[in-house]
């Protein structure tokens, strides 16, 4: 592994460790009580002692996040392809997409729960709404960014619409899609957590948001931090995974992934 690759690992790790140590020091030196600001050591201990219940909730949140992300991917890409092929449909449907994007899910999550009885389904819908627009928007731009000379070439060769999509538009759009995916990955997680704050029900089918709320209402601040830590770690893992996917699919040719 080159020195540069090594640095991308140890520099952020060292910075994180330094921050954690500073946090621990501040809490100890100033005697801050755990219900105001728990020390990292306490958070880790709480995480460990509550690991079984937190992991169950974590798995549920991850299930919703990835389910929503897959739906967003499928929906966003399909809709982008439809819009790219039919200007009329784009003009007709794009306003709905925008309306969905700007509607805060905290407001509509309870409404969705009224229409859809299942908690899991309504959380998936909310997280999907949050995550799909960057994929739709970026993929559409990508489909439209194909090299005009290549477009002419395909016209010359008599390519059909589908051939154009397959040979030119789809590969041209891939870098943009990956860029959108990197954004949507984090958004799907946020959507899953926020939707559960607004529309989740304690007890069955609960994710990290319910754990956070429960800890908040019962003044168990270290447990709140423990659950939040899991959310943060999940976000980082999603980010790393999307980067790896980008390198895998684009590394051999796209400038954005060149080292």
């Amino acid at each position, binding site marked *: 592994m080159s020195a540069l690759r090594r640095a991308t690992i140890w520099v952020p790790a060292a910075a994180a460790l330094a921050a954690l140590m500073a946090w621990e020091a501040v809490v100890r030196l100033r005697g801050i009580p755990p219900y105001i600001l728990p020390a990292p050591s306490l958070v880790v201990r709480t995480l460990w002692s509550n690991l079984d219940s937190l992991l169950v909730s974590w798995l549920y949140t991850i299930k919703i996040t990835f389910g929503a992300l897959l739906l967003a991917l499928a929906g966003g890409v399909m809709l982008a392809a439809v819009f790219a092929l039919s200007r009329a449909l784009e003009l007709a449907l794009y306003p709905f997409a925008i309306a969905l994007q700007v509607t805060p899910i905290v407001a509509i999550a309870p409404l969705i729960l009224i229409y859809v009885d299942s908690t899991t389904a309504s959380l998936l819908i909310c997280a999907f709404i949050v995550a799909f627009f960057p994929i739709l928007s970026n993929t559409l731009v990508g489909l439209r960014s194909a090299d005009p000379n*290549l477009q*002419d*070439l*395909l*016209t*010359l060769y*008599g390519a059909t619409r589908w051939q154009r999509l397959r*040979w030119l538009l789809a*590969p041209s759009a891939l870098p943009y899609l990956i860029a959108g995916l990197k954004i949507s990955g984090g958004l799907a997680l946020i959507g899953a957590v926020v939707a559960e704050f607004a529309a989740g029900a304690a007890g069955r089918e609960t994710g990290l948001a319910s754990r956070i709320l429960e800890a908040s209402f019962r003044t168990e601040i270290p447990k709140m931090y423990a659950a939040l830590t899991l959310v943060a770690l999940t976000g980082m893992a999603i980010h790393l995974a999307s980067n790896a996917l980008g390198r895998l699919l684009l590394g051999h*040719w796209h400038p954005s992934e060149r080292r």
Partner: protein
Amino acid sequence: MSAAIELDQVDKRFANGVAAVQALSIAIAAGQFVSLLGPSGCGKSTVLRLVAGLEQPSAGRVRIGGEAAQARSAAMSYVFQEPTLMPWARVLDNVALPMRIQGAARAAAREKAHQALAAVGLADRAGAYPAELSGGMKMRASLARALVTRPAVLLLDEPFAALDEITRHRLNDELLALWGTQVPTAVFVTHSVFEAVYLSQRVLVMGGRPGRLVADLPIALAYPRTPALRLQPQFTQHCRTVIGALQRAEAGAAGPR
């Protein structure tokens, strides 16, 4: 197999009101190598696109092999100034693309592509990605792609303009060699008088805005043409004739609309 090209009193006005060419009549015999020369803005690229069927004439007719030119009529190839390769695909698949679109199976298309690459001397780079090739190699791949379908008409829009002189000269010879094997009708747009004279049997000089045909100059030099030709007096003579026509064309462009 090659086709004759005919433009008959062609006008082309774009949607923004700009008239690119006016009352253009050109006849190119099947299998001829013709250069289109002229100052910027005289409509050379427009003529090429009209022949390719990528644009429709506002007036007049464009005929290929006696039939109206439509994009999608098979057997035309176009080489752009940029190599225009798909960066996400290997060179082999780039060259195989036209055949895949026209329905060939992958193995058969790749086989033909290999042969085309061999003809341009890129057989050993078939598995590389375009980003790994030099400018000259990418242009040769582009030529290979243009010729893999054995087109009746080969259209080239200043393909070597972005390359250095040595590579340019080498590619000139390679182009002539390739043309010599299939002998499609070739229309070569260029800025360079020397290149036009070196490559073609006829040099069409265009000028003015909108573009008109200013001169139609036959080049009576024998094939195969070699680099030594550039030093011979007939070559220089032809170039002088062409330059003169070009100056008249540029004067015409500078004159009153």
